[in-house]
């Protein structure tokens, strides 16, 4: 009985192996047949897989509710991933900025220069939407120390504009985005000075010759003040047929959101060249005048002659 059983098992195994071998040969035969007649297999596949193809196409491109939901969900998941990556990158950038800021403060402390120059805090009374000519009215005037030409800041280093009119109790600020505003800016990146002009509507532009490599995101600063930033370039207009290109910039915060600003106590406006020249001439004259008391003479007669000459 035992012998019979073992023979049966062996026979069964052999049979199974033979079956497997048979199907293996059949599969290989079909593959070879497919290689010889590829069109035949393709047609059979197209026929058999038609329902799969149809449903797959439906899911991929249909405007139906379910496929649309699946696709939009997939798109949203990808968008969330992208936003997360961007957020992580921004957080890294923020850390770098913080580190640089601290380093900057330490270096400033070493050079004994104050971090922020003396400023006044002023409340914004009126904004461009209720004032003509894109002006800002603040509640500090000459009584508080505001002078014409003083820079007005939003935050530590964001320049909003310059004081253009001062009364005893209030002042008007000309925004750097106001039409007609003209000044000089320095662009970090290409490291060039460029004229900046207000366009209006919260936008200013810097004008540069063709070929200067400006990019979106580059900082535009006010070169006359140690730490003052106009903003960053948000758009570039570059037409190859034109001799110049424009970089458009907007303030970091909307003017209508401003409640408090700080005002520098010193004017940054250039003095008139004639006055400057006269001052310089006077200084040069003073420096080159011979002070006779410094000379040691050997005889009183020589001193007397020198006095006569100087008179």
């Amino acid at each position, binding site marked *: 009985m035992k012998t019979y059983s073992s023979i049966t098992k062996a026979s069964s195994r052999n049979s199974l192996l033979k079956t497997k071998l048979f199907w293996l040969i059949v*599969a290989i035969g079909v593959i070879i047949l497919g290689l010889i007649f590829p069109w035949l297999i393709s047609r059979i596949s197209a026929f058999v897989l038609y329902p799969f193809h149809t449903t797959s196409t439906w899911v991929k491109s249909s405007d139906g509710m379910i496929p649309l939901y699946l696709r939009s969900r997939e798109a949203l998941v990808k968008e969330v991933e992208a936003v997360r990556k961007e957020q992580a990158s921004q957080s890294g950038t923020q850390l770098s900025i913080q580190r640089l800021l601290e380093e900057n403060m330490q270096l400033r402390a070493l050079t004994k220069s104050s971090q922020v120059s003396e400023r006044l805090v002023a409340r914004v009374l009126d904004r461009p939407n209720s004032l003509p000519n894109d002006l800002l009215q603040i509640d500090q005037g000459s009584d508080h120390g505001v002078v014409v030409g003083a820079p007005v800041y939003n935050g530590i280093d964001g320049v909003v504009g310059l004081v253009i009119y001062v009364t005893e109790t209030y002042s008007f600020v000309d925004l750097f985005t106001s039409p007609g505003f003209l000044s000089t800016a320095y662009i970090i990146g290409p490291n060039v000075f460029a004229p900046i002009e207000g366009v209006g509507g919260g936008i200013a532009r810097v004008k540069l010759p063709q070929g200067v490599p400006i990019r979106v995101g580059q900082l535009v600063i006010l070169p006359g003040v140690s730490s003052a930033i106009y903003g960053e370039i948000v758009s570039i207009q570059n037409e190859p047929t034109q001799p110049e290109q424009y970089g458009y910039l907007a303030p970091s915060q909307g003017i209508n959101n401003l409640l408090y600003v700080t005002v520098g106590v010193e004017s940054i406006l250039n003095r008139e060249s004639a006055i400057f020249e006269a001052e310089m001439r006077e200084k040069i004259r003073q420096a080159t005048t011979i002070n006779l008391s410094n000379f040691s003479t050997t005889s009183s007669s020589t001193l007397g002659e020198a006095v006569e000459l100087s008179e």
Partner: protein
Amino acid sequence: MKISWRITTLLLITWLLVGGLFIIASAFLLLYLYYFRGYELVVVGILIDGYYQYFYEWPLFSLSMLSIVILANLIKPHLLMYNVNNEMV
């Protein structure tokens, strides 16, 4: 009507391969080979090669399926586990 898991998984694998979702399909393929012998996967491979017209070049899916099925059936007996009652897990 009760639909067998085997047929459902096979149809799903075929649909994923037709849809081009190869990574997800390969995960289900491994699952399928774990539970079943999977000879029918060779047929699926041949059909997919025909669908993508790979028989004009190299029938990658057919050969891959054939290799995977043979390999799985060779390996599986060595991976069988038995409990204390000498029952196969």
